[in-house]
């Protein structure tokens, strides 16, 4: 286990460097003047240009720029934007909002997805099973922004059940709709995976044994069947949490949530290169670590899997 962990962590290093360099290169080698449009119509004053060029080593090669950026990064300094705001500050204010939304989305998709999957897996080809199959197909096929707009219009505008956008306080009730939208596709995947897994294990010998020795059905399902069937679902949830914490550019945009996804989109549109690179670096690290965690979780949950 220890050696496996070490190998995985070592494998992360080239991927981390490769991904961040790719982003850095794409963002900073944008053809054109990095100061264009930064200081209004009159262009940036020369001393501003000098300070920023020195700070970001803009007149040196991309390798030097990247190396010095990485050096700062490992000292916990994400840099500053062209307007002088610390990027650490941007991340610190917006990341909690993203996390809140991610937790709400994960809870919703786990609860609904799991119960739909378990119920339909236990009664295959019943009415509920077909309903789940059709509705998950829809959820998988629909792009997030279509789901978001339609639900926002229905619940927020037409019926007025919820406020269409989320306020700055991020109250829990306001987050239910965005959370549902964000988790909708994964919810469908979870339902399908749980269904297949339950249906497969339903025919397993140990389930037959449990029924044969006279255990009540509730115990057979709750203890024997669920514990064995939930392993793929848990890993799916873990991967998804990694993805959700990567921010939801589209969902956050539709519902006006001031999260990390919205910040990165704003930064890209306003060409705030330093912010883009920093946020992407954070997101990639979170994503890579979550994937590693899921693999480890897999072994912890299923004793049949052992990494040597």
């Amino acid at each position, binding site marked *: 286990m220890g050696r496996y962990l070490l190998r995985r962590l070592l494998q992360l290093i080239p991927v981390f460097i490769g991904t961040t360099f790719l982003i850095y290169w794409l963002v900073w080698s944008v053809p054109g003047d990095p100061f264009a449009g930064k200081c209004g119509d009159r262009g940036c004053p020369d001393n501003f240009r000098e300070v920023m060029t020195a700070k970001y080593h803009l007149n040196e090669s991309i390798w030097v720029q990247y190396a010095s950026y990485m050096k700062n990064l490992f000292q916990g300094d994400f840099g500053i934007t062209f307007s002088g705001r610390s990027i650490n500050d941007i991340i610190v204010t917006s990341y909690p909002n993203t996390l809140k939304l991610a937790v709400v989305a994960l809870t919703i998709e786990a609860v609904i997805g799991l119960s739909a999957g378990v119920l339909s897996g236990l009664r295959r080809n019943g009415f509920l099973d077909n309903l789940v199959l059709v509705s998950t197909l829809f959820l998988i096929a629909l792009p997030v922004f*279509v789901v978001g707009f339609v639900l926002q219009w229905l619940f927020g505008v037409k019926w007025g059940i919820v406020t269409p956008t989320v306020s700055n306080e991020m109250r829990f009730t306001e987050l239910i709709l965005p959370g549902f939208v964000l988790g909708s596709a994964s919810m469908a995947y979870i339902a399908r995976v749980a269904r297949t897994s339950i249906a497969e294990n339903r025919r397993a010998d140990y389930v037959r044994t449990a029924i044969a020795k006279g255990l009540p059905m509730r115990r057979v399902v709750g203890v024997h069947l669920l514990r064995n069937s939930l392993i793929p679902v848990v890993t799916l949830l873990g991967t998804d949490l990694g993805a959700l914490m*990567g921010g939801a550019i*589209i969902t956050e945009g539709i519902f006006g949530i001031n999260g990390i*996804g919205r910040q990165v989109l704003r930064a890209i549109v306003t060409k705030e290169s330093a912010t*883009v690179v920093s946020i992407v670096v954070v*997101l990639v690290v979170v994503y890579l670590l979550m994937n590693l965690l899921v693999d480890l979780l897999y072994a912890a949950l299923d004793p049949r899997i052992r990494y040597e």
Partner: protein
Amino acid sequence: MSDPSAASIVSTPRPEQPTEIGAPTNAGLPENARKEKPRGLLGDAWRDLRRKPLFWISATFILLFVVMAAFPSLFTSGDSVNGTLSRSRVEPSSDAWFGYDVQGRDVFARTIYGARASILVALLSTVGTLVIGGAMGIIAGYRGGWVDGLLSRIADIFFGLPFVLGAIVILTTFNGSGTDNNEWQIMGLVIVSLVVLSWPVVMRLMRSSVLATKEADYIVAARALGAGTGRIILKHLLPNCLAPLLVYGTIMVGSFIGAEATLSFLGIGLKTPVVSWGIMISEAQNYIRVSPFLLFFPAAFLVTAVLSFVMLGEAVREALDPKLR
């Protein structure tokens, strides 16, 4: 695939899927082959497919959309690009079934013409992803060793990029507000960024099925008979690894239609004067409270198209999977 929205846009095969669709593709054959004249895997699948209503429904829709993309004038005589401001946001009527948009353009005509860009981008990106990912997967799986290691790490790098984020960075770099790319260049850029961000998935799929087949007896036999690498790959490996790729490819067309719409919706994909469903939805979003019909018609077409391809993929998967027979 990482961004949650991305996860839904390009549906990555989840951990379970490869085993499901990557199952030994010719396992169910001998039994059938003995009874009647021998049929290949595809012949078998085709026989299975013909009996499925789901297949016929989705195939009909896809055919309809393809005809719509190729000959939009068959469906409408309206003008999709020019409008009259005096009829801005006029509600649907018998004159214009879907109403008029903010610029007074016929929404019905635009929706019909929108099929072309959406479907073209999705089809070309799918072909590109399958070719690049498939080739990389075969090389990595067949060669093994350091080639496999190197290609897998490169794939990891692109896999580590959240989809929407990666596409935004690539497209704003090459297709930002200051650039003056023409229609075809923009379309090319969108296709390239979809391919660049999706090939690792196909590569992993292909690599694992090559690894599974590479040591099979018929490959060993072919090698013993003196077949070269090229012949083994083309004649033996490729046909036997094609099934999962075919299924994933079909579903991918659907996801790419959605992905193209998402990028256009964010304002970094296709742009006016190109007409696409994503652009229409993006333009409609500001008027969602006063004229929701502007949003619903292109969205309905988009959803139907995506659903058709995803359903076709599901039908093909069921037909190709011997376990479900």
